[in-house]
């Protein structure tokens, strides 16, 4: 799609060749692209929502898909509220987005600040007659990522920036059936959703209430050919007795660093498949895809991409392209792009021989199975223990989830505790963490150390890797 074409998602779907292709989310719920783009799919009062700011907070993916298709090109701004984000942040997100409406099917969802449009999914007819189809709005798409303080960050995209990496035509003559292990309200899943929508391709999505084995069986019956997920999600697939129910031609990994073990294991399980690992993030957009089955990035891939400019500055990868987000929403937010329009991915790359390897995040962010953990948030909780002087939270490699959280703790008393007291302190600190933090943020190990490295500016030195 050319970047300056303001054609809405709905109009693009209607222009695609195959309107009968379906999204299948399991439990008998499926809808064709034609139905989702048509009138009967969605009962929301589009006329009233015109030009407004809307939070899409549906429970299921099919309702989210219908909302995104119906609202793009109509509303000024829509926020994709992911299902795994605590609902306690809803008011904060709605306030930052100046939202007037929340679209949801959740009967228990309340908001003191917004109108709530309860969608009655797939029943009745919508009242689209009042909508001025000629009016075109370039809708702002807001994706949520985790922030240092525990509050989500609101990342600004447009349909054009989100679809910059998508070719509208399937170059292969073989029919494609897409699937993704991501939720479509996360950047990785949204990429696949938009890819399928713009190419009129069937799409198989997982349901939060089904097991991985049930999902794989269904995906196998639907004959999926192309499928994406994080390395941790793929490890889960490979640990399922139903891994052999699918026979994909293309397997894509993104969202976490792909190590050589998972690339080899996937090649072994799916010998016919092309195994690709992509580098993409909500902020930087789709940067590149590596197809040679080897971890890391070939050195010549950086600086030789016609669509994405890449450079290394101060050790981290910087990206400039029409696919990056334009900024964060909120007055106090830091700029996303530098003066030249480059986005700092924050990923540290190290050159060894003729390949770049990821060496962690410069800010120390830990990736636990695709979920980001900011060390500052965990340190603040640990430091509440009265005997803790300071703490440093860092990553520990995991063969299952990529990374896990561990903590180095300096006690206030210079005297090292005895073994019994050490164990008691570990228990007490973990108790505070479990009460305050999501389980994936709770350290799996606590080490007591005598000092922590502090820089000349007085900040903790965070080792990446």
């Amino acid at each position, binding site marked *: 799609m050319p970047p300056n074409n303001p054609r809405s998602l709905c109009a693009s779907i209607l222009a695609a060749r195959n309107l009968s292709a379906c999204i299948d989310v399991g439990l008998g719920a499926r809808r064709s692209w034609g139905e989702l783009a048509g009138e009967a799919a969605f009962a929301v009062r589009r006329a009233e929502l015109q030009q407004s700011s809307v939070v899409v907070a549906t429970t299921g993916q099919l309702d989210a898909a219908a909302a995104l298709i119906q609202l793009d090109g109509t509303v000024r701004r829509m926020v994709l509220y992911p299902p795994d984000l605590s609902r306690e942040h809803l008011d904060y997100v709605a306030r930052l987005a100046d939202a007037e409406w929340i679209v949801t099917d959740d009967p228990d969802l309340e908001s003191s600040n917004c109108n709530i449009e309860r969608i009655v999914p797939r029943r009745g007819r919508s009242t689209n007659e009042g909508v001025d189809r000629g009016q075109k709005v370039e809708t702002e798409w807001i994706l949520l990522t985790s922030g240092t303080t525990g509050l989500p960050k609101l990342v600004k995209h447009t349909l054009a920036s989100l679809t910059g990496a998508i070719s509208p035509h399937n170059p292969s003559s073989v029919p494609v059936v897409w699937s993704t292990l991501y939720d479509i309200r996360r950047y990785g899943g949204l990429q696949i959703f938009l890819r399928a929508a713009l190419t009129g391709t069937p799409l198989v999505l997982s349901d939060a209430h089904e097991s991985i084995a049930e999902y794989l069986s269904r995906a196998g019956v639907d004959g999926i050919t192309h499928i994406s997920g994080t390395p941790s999600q793929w490890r889960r697939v490979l640990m399922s007795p139903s891994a052999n129910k699918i026979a994909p031609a293309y397997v894509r990994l993104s969202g976490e660093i792909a190590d050589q*073990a998972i690339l080899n*294991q996937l090649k072994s399980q799916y010998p016919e498949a092309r195994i690709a690992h992509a580098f993409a993030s909500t902020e930087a957009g789709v940067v590149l895809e590596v197809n040679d089955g080897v971890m890391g990035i070939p050195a010549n891939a950086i600086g030789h991409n016609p669509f994405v400019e890449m450079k290394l500055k101060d050790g981290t990868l910087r990206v400039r392209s029409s696919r990056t987000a334009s900024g964060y929403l909120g007055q106090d937010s830091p700029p996303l792009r530098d003066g030249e329009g480059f986005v700092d991915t924050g990923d540290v790359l190290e050159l060894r021989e003729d390949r770049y390897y990821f060496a962690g995040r410069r800010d120390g962010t830990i990736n636990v199975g695709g979920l980001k953990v900011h060390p500052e948030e965990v340190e603040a909780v640990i430091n509440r223990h009265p005997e803790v002087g300071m703490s440093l939270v860092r990553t520990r490699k995991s*063969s299952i989830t990529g990374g896990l959280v561990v903590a180095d703790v300096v006690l206030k008393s210079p005297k090292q505790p005895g073994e019994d007291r050490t164990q008691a302190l570990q228990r007490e600190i973990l108790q505070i963490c479990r009460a305050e933090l999501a389980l994936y943020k709770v350290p799996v190990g606590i080490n007591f150390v005598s000092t922590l490295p502090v820089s000349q500016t007085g900040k903790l030195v965070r080792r990446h890797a």
Partner: protein
Amino acid sequence: MDVKAEVIAQFQQVAAEQGLQLAPLTDELALFDSGLDSLCFAIIVVRLEQTFGVDPFSANNLSFPVTFGDFIGCYQNAAK
């Protein structure tokens, strides 16, 4: 050291810590039917590495364990 007993102990320990109901641990039990999730398995693997000094899944092995019996087998083979 009894590998199987140690693995069972860690499954029970992590299930208790995370407040999860653990299914009876038979050799045929599919790991994801045990009541534990990926995060739990990651924690178990870290703890078992502290005990046995080895993480059998970090090596270039080409298959992941599917059942509880496979999982124990990975550690028994690594200990040889």
